[in-house]
């Protein structure tokens, strides 16, 4: 670690991992509710558990992104962070606001939470992923702006590398597009249309910039490959991400009352969305093969290659599977979507944050890499989580294909609930895979505490 202020990232990463555990525990609860419908009912109904599951994911990924930025921006800019105190203050504000929001979901009925937080003044609650009370949303904006100010000032008065500028652009986009969460018209079609300006333009737009810049940074560090080469890749990857992803938003506008031309535009452009992810895979393997040094952190290398592959499979291949309008006509809003969502989020965003944590955490703890035994446990956790996520995705895909056939495609369509009973076995297998994932997460956390011979910073 070259600059003292980089160590603020540690705080962010610890919180991220803690919330990750919460997210997975609720995931396991949800999986069980799929097969035991009355599990925890009416204390924690499915909708509440799901809100906790998805909101914890978003919040911990944001912690992960911000932590990554606080670690890499000073080093790239070759100066201390502009205002370390502000980063610390925002950490606590974000953590407390996040925790209060989650507790609010769990302790009072959602309608009561809406009342307490005066949702009527500016109604923004109750839309998927944007369930946070309006006041929490305002808090998120404040945290995001303070964060942007902090890294922006650091970058402006320091060395301006491509990685830093891409990170800053991605984070600015994240903050700007979140503002659409405050727009909630009564007209349902308009509401849905602009809801995607947050959700799609985040995960299939600016988040890809953040992901690519984190990946590029870690690859420079662990391979020692020339920065010029890596920056060229970075530009072309994010260029393809935005060229395909912006109009690719149209694949969400097939069936919500929007004009017919979106069927063509959305299909064609979103069919190209795997390209940037495929390039990321090529990039990662290429750069690792051309490495100029053998970094002792084997686990970080594994995560970096893993995220490139899994993002391509989850976001690219599983996205393509149901993105063409004639296919999506049948698959829209089924377990196919759930399958894609799980592997895409894990492969692209969970794994890239874990890549950064894997690389930087040992350094912040005064070593160049984790000791051999710790790395072995960490790599075990990589395989447990990654393979179980592959199986979760396959089982949900199986459930989805059957669901589409029984409920939408066959001569004599069944009702939703009857169909759900028929495909129960897939949900059971998914739940088992989910428990393996939880075990993998346990191994991951254990890896931070495994003692062994230290790998000193040279």
């Amino acid at each position, binding site marked *: 670690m070259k600059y003292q202020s980089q160590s603020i990232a540690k705080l962010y990463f610890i919180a991220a991992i803690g919330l990750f555990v919460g997210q997975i525990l609720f995931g396991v609860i949800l999986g069980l509710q799929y097969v035991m419908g009355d599990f925890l009912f009416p204390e924690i109904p499915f*909708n509440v558990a*799901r809100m906790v599951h998805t909101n914890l994911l978003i919040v911990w990924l944001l912690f992960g992104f911000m932590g990554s930025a606080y670690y890499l921006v000073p080093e790239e800019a070759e100066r201390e962070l502009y205002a370390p105190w502000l980063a610390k203050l925002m950490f606590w504000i974000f953590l407390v606001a996040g925790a209060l929001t989650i507790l609010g979901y769990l302790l009072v009925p959602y309608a009561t939470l809406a009342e307490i937080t005066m949702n009527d003044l500016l109604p923004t609650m109750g839309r998927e992923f944007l369930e946070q009370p309006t006041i929490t949303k305002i808090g998120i904006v404040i945290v995001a702006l303070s964060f942007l100010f902090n890294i922006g000032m650091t970058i402006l008065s320091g060395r301006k590398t491509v990685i830093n500028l891409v990170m800053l652009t991605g984070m600015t986009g994240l903050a700007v597009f979140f503002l659409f969460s405050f727009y909630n018209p009564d007209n349902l079609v*308009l509401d849905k249309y602009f809801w995607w300006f947050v959700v799609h333009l985040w995960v299939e737009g600016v988040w890809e910039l953040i992901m690519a810049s984190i990946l590029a940074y870690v690859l420079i560090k662990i391979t020692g490959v020339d920065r010029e080469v890596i920056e060229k890749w970075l530009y072309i990857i994010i260029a393809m991400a935005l060229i395909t992803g912006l109009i690719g938003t149209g694949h969400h506008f097939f069936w919500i009352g929007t004009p017919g031309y979106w069927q063509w535009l959305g299909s064609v452009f979103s069919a190209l969305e795997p390209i940037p992810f495929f390039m990321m895979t090529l990039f990662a393997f290429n750069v690792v093969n051309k490495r100029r040094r053998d970094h002792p952190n084997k686990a970080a290398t594994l995560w970096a290659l893993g995220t490139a592959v899994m993002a391509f499979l989850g976001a690219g291949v599983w996205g393509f599977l149901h993105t063409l309008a004639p296919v999506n006509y049948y698959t829209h809003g089924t377990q196919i979507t759930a399958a894609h969502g799980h592997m895409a989020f894990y492969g692209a965003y969970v794994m890239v944050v874990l890549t950064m944590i894997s690389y930087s955490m040992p350094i912040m703890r005064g070593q160049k890499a984790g000791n051999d035994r710790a790395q072995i446990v960490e790599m075990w956790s990589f395989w447990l989580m990654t393979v179980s996520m592959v199986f979760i995705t396959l089982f949900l895909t199986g459930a989805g294909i059957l669901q589409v056939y029984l409920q939408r495609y066959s001569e004599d369509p069944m009702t939703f609930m009857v169909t759900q009973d028929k495909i129960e076995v897939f949900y059971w297998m998914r739940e088992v895979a989910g428990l393996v994932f939880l075990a993998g997460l346990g191994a991951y956390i254990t890896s931070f505490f495994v003692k062994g011979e230290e790998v000193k910073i040279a």
Partner: protein
Amino acid sequence: MRETFTKGMARNIYYGGSVFFFLVLLGLTVDTVRSLPKTDNSQNLTEEVAAGKRLWEINNCIGCHTLLGEGAYFAPELGNVYTRYGENTEAIKIFIKSRPKDGIPGRRSMPQFNFTEEELEQIAQFLKYADGIKTARNWPPNIQG
């Protein structure tokens, strides 16, 4: 990548491409918003429907159901529930009203929300309005949603 393809070219593709397609998205958005009145059933967007939408939101219905295919996949699609229930708002109200407080042993069940008659009417009207939105190819594929 070969030397003939320089970092500068990659950078220009990024800036040029993203600005261009962002402007295209903006243009298409303007066109979409302008043409929505033809399909969005806004002629039936009454105060009652708006109130129903708010109830839909503050009870987090999207946390289990899909509406026009978006939401959670734990409970039935509601974008066509009005049609599925025989174009009868009373049937929708009776279903919501009759949910057992403690659920159904071993099975999924919708919570009992204790809505007033007025609220029930608002939700039913909101679902009727949503059903009236003209989706492409009349999605969902069939009455089961």
